């Protein structure tokens, strides 16, 4: 008997599914109005604790997208730049850093029309005190 019902139902198989979907809450969210909350482990933008950074350049060497660059004047005096448009948020710099000064939080990287906005200076220890 089940076979026979299945044969009949095969003509409009999804009918029960669509009626059930009709009366249940939709799965999608109206995106611009309702904003999507990223998970904690989401790797967003690069942040730094400038105090810990000693300018060793481990992160610059390991960055796959060449998004970090170090201007070293002398032992304690350097500047670490970050090009956000090249950064792929992979988190390798966080893993390579031995002084845990560079890390990624889960905030969105805002878009911008001009590429120059993506350039930011992370650590600026060029002027001797």
């Amino acid at each position, binding site marked *: 008997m089940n076979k026979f019902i299945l044969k009949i139902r095969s003509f409009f198989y999804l009918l029960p599914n669509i009626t059930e979907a009709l009366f249940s809450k939709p799965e999608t969210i109206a995106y611009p109005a309702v904003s999507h909350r990223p998970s904690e482990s989401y790797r967003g933008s690069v942040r730094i604790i400038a105090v810990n950074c000693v300018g060793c350049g481990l992160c610059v060497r390991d960055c796959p997208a060449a998004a970090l*660059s170090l201007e070293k004047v002398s032992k304690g005096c350097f500047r670490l*730049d970050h*090009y956000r*448009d090249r950064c792929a948020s992979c988190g390798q710099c966080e893993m390579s850093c031995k002084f845990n000064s560079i890390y990624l939080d889960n905030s969105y990287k805002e878009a911008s029309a001009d*590429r*120059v906005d993506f*350039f930011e*200076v992370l650590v600026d220890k060029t002027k001797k005190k």
Partner: protein
Amino acid sequence: MTIEKTAIKLQEILNLDRSTKKLIPLNEVKITISKQQILLAVQTILKSGIWHLSAITCQQLENEFNLLYHFWKSGGLTLLISLDEKNLRIDSICSLIPGAEYYEREAREMFGIEFLGMPNPLPLLLPDNWQGGYPMRKKEQPSQEKSKENPAQEKGKSA
């Protein structure tokens, strides 16, 4: 183990000495054969029930090119053939294994290896009007290392 038996049988038929067989990681048996024996080797492999050709790797060493034919049947068997730089010609195995056509076309356009008897020698990945020589070859190192500086970097330099 069919891979072992085939390897030994291959060495008898092509009367190669013991040193040609080598074991490389992830249980792969590698046998070095010469250029002329390629068709005979592939026929014996097919006869002994191994039909799956995983890939044909081509690589450039100091003054010679290596061609590696990787077969597989729940274990790996690789044939290593070395061609010297002057004449990069070898017989195509598309007649025996039609599946090898894409790998041969790619080796031909990336390294410049001539496969005699290829069904359709068209470029696989490169555009038709490509004049940049053979991209995968070592010595044609592109001159400038850094790609075009983007404006952010100039600003970075000047800041």
